[in-house]
């Protein structure tokens, strides 16, 4: 092998070694930093391709922050003399991940350039392991120091602050805070705060920042309650108040850990980072959890310690300051030990008891009972003794109650332990209540006041063993106290009152009762025999009374009376009873007051002249007074327990029932009128008022008999109604005005006449004047007294203008009223609408006028007969023709009728009388002849209408007489002429036609029947006879016609 070949081979194998070396290798230009060669492992490990490498410099595989390091290293390499160099560096892969590499390098000349060959050994894994171990060590160290601090803790708050400092510096946070939960409000109050140097404590160290946080994000709170911590990266929070607040405080991230004590969330530890959005590592959280659990333990311990200390203090206080007496006695009751409390409770030092027997202190009345109970201790372990009296240092009787426990066989104690409680207050209260109850019972029983009070005194006597007890009550007029009742031992009473029966009342300030009245306080008088304050001392001395007690009975501030008790005992022995009775005296005041009121009410109830009653809710009469029974005419027994509705008028029952219902349901009691029926069926009007007593389901009712008033009212209202109606019909209004006022009072009809209502018109003088017709206003202007005379009614007719602008005629009757001094004070009047009447009058005047004109214009004679006055009036129609009077009394012999023939007069008179007497006839007519002035006969048609009243009696007859003479004469003439003409006609048709017809028949006979068996000669004879007959008849007709002509001539001449 040639050297060249050898060199070539050697070069190839070097290349191969370089390329296949298991470590990344490269050669770089020291001048340009450029990679000159890289091996495969470098490509694999760093992720760049060979081409990429060759375009890069070594700076490109270093993190930016390490480039200055690199530049220093290269600078050093350029100048160093030794070839080999090694060091630990950070490199960056193509994927930007960082690795820790050990670099070994040698300077070489490569292709004429100063270069360095580098191997990079990746130590990242190892490096990481090592740093983990270091970290772990640090954590353990921290945990150790926290443990140490907390274990030795005497003041956990201070120690916790120290822990926070260690942790804060270690973890690089800015603030750590412990919040303790204060349970009732469920708020978290900062207890321990640590802040890094750069951080300031917030403005409100006591505020609770969690309230808003939990309101915004309740799941955080839930998570804490479950014992889990949570972390917040502020920038990740959705927009919220919490976010705003945290941002304001520059907090970037937040960690909250719960402090659980006995599984209850008792506090929080929060850690704040003001710089980083920190992601908490597992071991950091673990470290903090260690802290919280340690802290929980410490706090728990501290709490338990505190409780223990408190309990101890309490117990000590109980024993030293309690009210229970503890003593140890032997089976005979001799004291062997007495606890310190005796001084406090009874005022007797414990040593005083030693060597004494318990029975020396016990009330003699209680001794037998207690002896017996103590005796039971030989067989029983425990005995409870009911309250008994025990004398204290002041010789007052105290009520105490004792539990005895047998420790006789206990060698340490060797006695009976007596646990005793002072129950004086309770016992006295109970006794007072009992006495009060029995007094209340006695007083409120349904009997008279004095019986009730006697019973009450018996209760007091029984209770206190007094010799004599009395009740004194203030009299109705408040002038004195009266002895109402007394009680006591029979013999004592007899003796005492025999000698003092003249004393039964006291004035204020006199005697014991009077003094009590004056001071309104209990007074106890002792040594009665020589006590001047006690007036009846002489009587008392007979019974050896020692003490007198006066106890006021008060209702609120009102003094009702007093109870006087006389005792055979000395004052000191009755003080307990005085105390008790004084209290009772205050309490029974209300009851007594009620009883007195009740008594007064009952008296009033029974003597009241008005009906009173008590009504059950069912409407039954529970109680009624005499007046009620008397009013309805029943016996009381007939009414009691009956429904009140039985006695009510049918029409008022429903209304009354409704009313009672309303009252029961709480309606305001108002007056109510109802009619009752008496036993004998009379109606009584009662006005009722009721008050409901809900508790007793009773309605108290009072009534007043208003029957008379009601009847008067009804009569008045009916006559008012009639008057109103009458005024309405008559269109009659009334008004008055006092001269002192401007306004006139108008009656309803007065308004009506004017077309106004009281709502739209005020009758002031000015307004009234305006209602007058302008032409009539002068009537109202000026002083009325000038036109009117006092007391005399003056009548005016004038026009008014109504509300609807119509003109009405009214008639006013006005007068002035004057007082006793003849000074006018009022003007009054009636106003009547006479428009219709006025119109009638107007119409009548017009028609009268027309009538008169018609009479004047008429040819006829018009007459008017006034039947009431029996006068007749006749117009002058025929006064030229016939003599008559135009006005005269009407009789058969009147001036008109006297011109008739006596026969005609009879007929006419009878006919007229007949028509007048027929009540239904309204028309009469008759034709008659009258002799004229000239002596000729005149024909008249007389006819009239008859006006009658409602009974058919003729009032007035109006008639007219027509001269029909001319037409009558004419008629007569025509009649005559007609008669003649009829005769001519008859002659023509019968008399002339008879011979003519015969002639015609004869001719017919000859012509048609050849003479019918007669000869021609015979027929000619008969024709000739008939012709002569015909001639004679014609002559007769001519004569008659002449007569008619003559007649006509005469008539026309006439």
């Amino acid at each position, binding site marked *: 092998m040639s050297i060249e070949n050898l060199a070539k081979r050697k070069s190839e194998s070097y290349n191969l070694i370089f390329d296949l070396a298991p470590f990344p290798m490269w050669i770089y230009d020291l001048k340009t930093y450029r990679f000159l060669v890289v091996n495969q492992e470098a490509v694999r490990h760093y992720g760049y391709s060979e081409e990429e490498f060759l375009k890069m410099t070594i700076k490109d595989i270093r993190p930016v922050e390490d480039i200055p390091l690199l530049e220093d290293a290269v600078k050093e390499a350029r100048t160093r003399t030794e070839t080999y160099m090694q060091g630990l560096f950070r490199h960056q892969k193509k994927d930007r991940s960082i690795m820790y590499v050990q670099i070994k390098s040698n300077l070489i000349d490569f292709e004429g350039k100063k270069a360095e060959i580098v191997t990079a050994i990746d130590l990242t894994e190892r490096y990481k392991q090592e740093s983990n171990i270091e970290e772990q060590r640090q954590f353990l160290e921290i945990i150790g120091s926290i443990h140490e601090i907390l274990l030795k803790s005497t003041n956990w708050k201070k120690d916790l602050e120290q822990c926070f400092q260690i942790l804060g510096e270690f973890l690089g946070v800015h603030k750590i805070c412990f919040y303790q939960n204060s349970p009732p409000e469920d708020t978290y109050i900062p207890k321990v705060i640590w802040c890094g140097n750069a951080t300031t404590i917030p403005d409100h160290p006591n505020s609770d920042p969690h309230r808003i946080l939990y309101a915004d994000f309740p799941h955080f709170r839930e998570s804490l309650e479950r014992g889990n911590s949570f972390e917040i990266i502020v920038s990740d929070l959705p927009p919220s108040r919490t976010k705003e607040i945290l941002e304001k405080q520059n907090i970037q991230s937040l960690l909250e850990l719960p402090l659980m004590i006995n599984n209850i969330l008792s506090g929080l530890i929060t850690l704040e980072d003001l710089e980083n959005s920190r992601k908490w590592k597992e071991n950091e959280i673990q470290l903090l959890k260690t802290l919280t659990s340690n802290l929980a333990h410490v706090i728990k311990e501290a709490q338990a310690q505190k409780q223990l200390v408190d309990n101890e203090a309490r117990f000590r206080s109980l024993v030293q300051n309690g009210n229970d007496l503890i003593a140890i006695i032997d089976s005979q009751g001799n004291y062997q030990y007495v606890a310190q409390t005796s001084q406090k409770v009874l005022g007797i030092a414990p040593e005083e008891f030693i060597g004494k027997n318990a029975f020396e202190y016990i009330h003699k009345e209680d001794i037998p009972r207690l002896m017996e109970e103590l005796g039971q201790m030989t067989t029983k372990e425990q005995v409870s003794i009911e309250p008994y009296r025990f004398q204290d240092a002041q010789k007052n009787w105290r009520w105490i109650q004792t539990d005895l426990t047998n420790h006789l066989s206990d060698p340490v104690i060797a006695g009976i332990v007596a646990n005793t409680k002072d129950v004086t207050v309770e016992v006295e209260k109970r006794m007072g209540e009992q006495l009060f109850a029995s007094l209340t019972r006695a007083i409120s029983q349904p009997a008279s006041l004095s019986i009730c009070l006697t019973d009450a005194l018996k209760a007091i006597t029984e209770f206190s063993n007094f010799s004599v007890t009395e009740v004194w009550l203030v009299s109705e007029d408040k002038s004195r106290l009266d002895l109402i009742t007394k009680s006591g031992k029979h013999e004592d009473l007899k003796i005492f009152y025999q000698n003092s029966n003249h004393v039964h009342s006291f004035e204020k300030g006199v005697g014991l009762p009077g003094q009590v009245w004056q001071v309104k306080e209990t007074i106890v008088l002792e040594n009665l025999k020589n006590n001047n304050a006690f007036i009846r001392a002489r009587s008392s001395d007979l019974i050896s009374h020692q003490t007198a007690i006066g106890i006021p009975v008060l209702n609120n501030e009102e003094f009702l009376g007093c109870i006087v008790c006389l005792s055979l005992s000395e004052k000191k022995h009755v003080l307990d009873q005085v105390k008790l009775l004084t209290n009772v005296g205050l309490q029974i005041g209300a009851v007594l007051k009620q009883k007195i009121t009740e008594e007064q009410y009952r008296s009033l109830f029974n003597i009241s002249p008005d009906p009173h009653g008590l009504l059950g809710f069912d409407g039954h009469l529970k109680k009624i007074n005499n007046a009620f029974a008397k009013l309805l005419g029943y016996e009381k027994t007939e009414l009691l327990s009956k429904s009140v509705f039985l006695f009510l008028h049918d029409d008022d029952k429903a209304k009354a029932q409704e009313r009672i219902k309303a009252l029961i349901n709480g309606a305001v009691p108002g007056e109510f009128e109802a009619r009752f029926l008496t036993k004998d069926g009379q109606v009584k009007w009662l006005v009722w008022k009721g008050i409901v007593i809900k508790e007793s389901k009773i309605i108290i009712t009072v009534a007043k008999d208003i029957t008379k008033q009601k009847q008067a009212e009804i009569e008045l209202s009916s006559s008012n109604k009639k008057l109103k109606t009458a005024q309405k019909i008559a269109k009659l209004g009334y008004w008055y005005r006092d001269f002192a006022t401007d306004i006139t009072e108008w009656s309803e009809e007065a308004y009506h006449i004017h077309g106004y209502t009281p709502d739209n018109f005020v009758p002031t003088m000015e307004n009234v004047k305006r209602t007058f017709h302008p032409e009539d206003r002068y009537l109202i202007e000026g002083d009325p007294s000038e036109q009117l005379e006092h007391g005399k009614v003056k009548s005016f007719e004038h026009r008014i203008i109504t509300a609807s602008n119509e003109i009405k005629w009214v008639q006013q009757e006005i007068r002035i009223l004057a007082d006793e001094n003849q000074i006018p004070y009022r003007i009054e009047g009636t106003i009547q609408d006479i428009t219709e009447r006025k119109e009638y009058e107007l119409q009548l005047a017009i028609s009268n006028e027309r009538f008169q004109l018609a009479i004047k214009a008429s040819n006829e004679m018009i007459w008017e007969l006034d039947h009431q006055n029996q006068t007749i009036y006749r117009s002058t129609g025929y006064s030229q023709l016939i003599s008559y009077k135009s006005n005269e009394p009407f009789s058969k012999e009147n001036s008109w009728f006297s011109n008739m023939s006596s026969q005609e007069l009879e007929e006419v008179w009878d006919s007229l009388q007949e028509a007048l007497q027929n009540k239904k006839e309204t028309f009469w007519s008759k034709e008659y002849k009258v002799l004229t002035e000239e002596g000729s006969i005149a024909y008249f048609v007389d006819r009239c209408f008859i006006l009658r009243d409602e009974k058919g009696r003729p009032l007035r007859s109006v008639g007219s007489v027509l001269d029909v003479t001319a037409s009558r004469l004419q008629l007569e003439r025509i009649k005559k002429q007609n008669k003649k003409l009829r005769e001519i*006609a*008859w002659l023509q*048709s*019968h008399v002339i*036609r*008879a011979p*003519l*017809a*015969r002639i*015609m*028949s*004869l001719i*017919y*006979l000859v012509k*048609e*029947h050849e003479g*019918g*068996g*007669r000869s021609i000669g015979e027929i000619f004879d*008969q024709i000739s006879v*008939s012709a002569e007959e015909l001639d004679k008849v014609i002559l007769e007709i001519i004569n008659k016609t002449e007569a008619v002509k003559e007649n006509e001539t005469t008539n026309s001449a006439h």
Partner: protein
Amino acid sequence: MKQQILLIDDDPVINFIHSKIIRKKFPDVPLLIFENGHKALAHLKSNPVNSYLIFLDLNMPELDGWGFLKAMSLDYKGIDSQVYVVTSSVDPVDKMRAKRYDQVLSFLIKPLKADDLEKIPFVL
């Protein structure tokens, strides 16, 4: 029941002529002549069951034609009769007056002619 023709007239010449004319028309019916109403009524009274054809003059003494008609309408209503007034009067008042009587069938004016009888619905 017999049928009879009655001629009531006070004029014997007229009666003669009328009976000639009537017999010619009703040759088989007996014909009776009365010179006034009374006599005719007397016949009717005694022979109420016959049925009659009556020719009645108005102007007659004793009881004239009006009196006869009035008596017939009052007292002889039930008699079966047909009355022909035969009068010389041409007074329309008479004609109207005659029409008031139900029995009067026609008002004939003298002289009676055969033609007048043709209109008579008297059936044998």
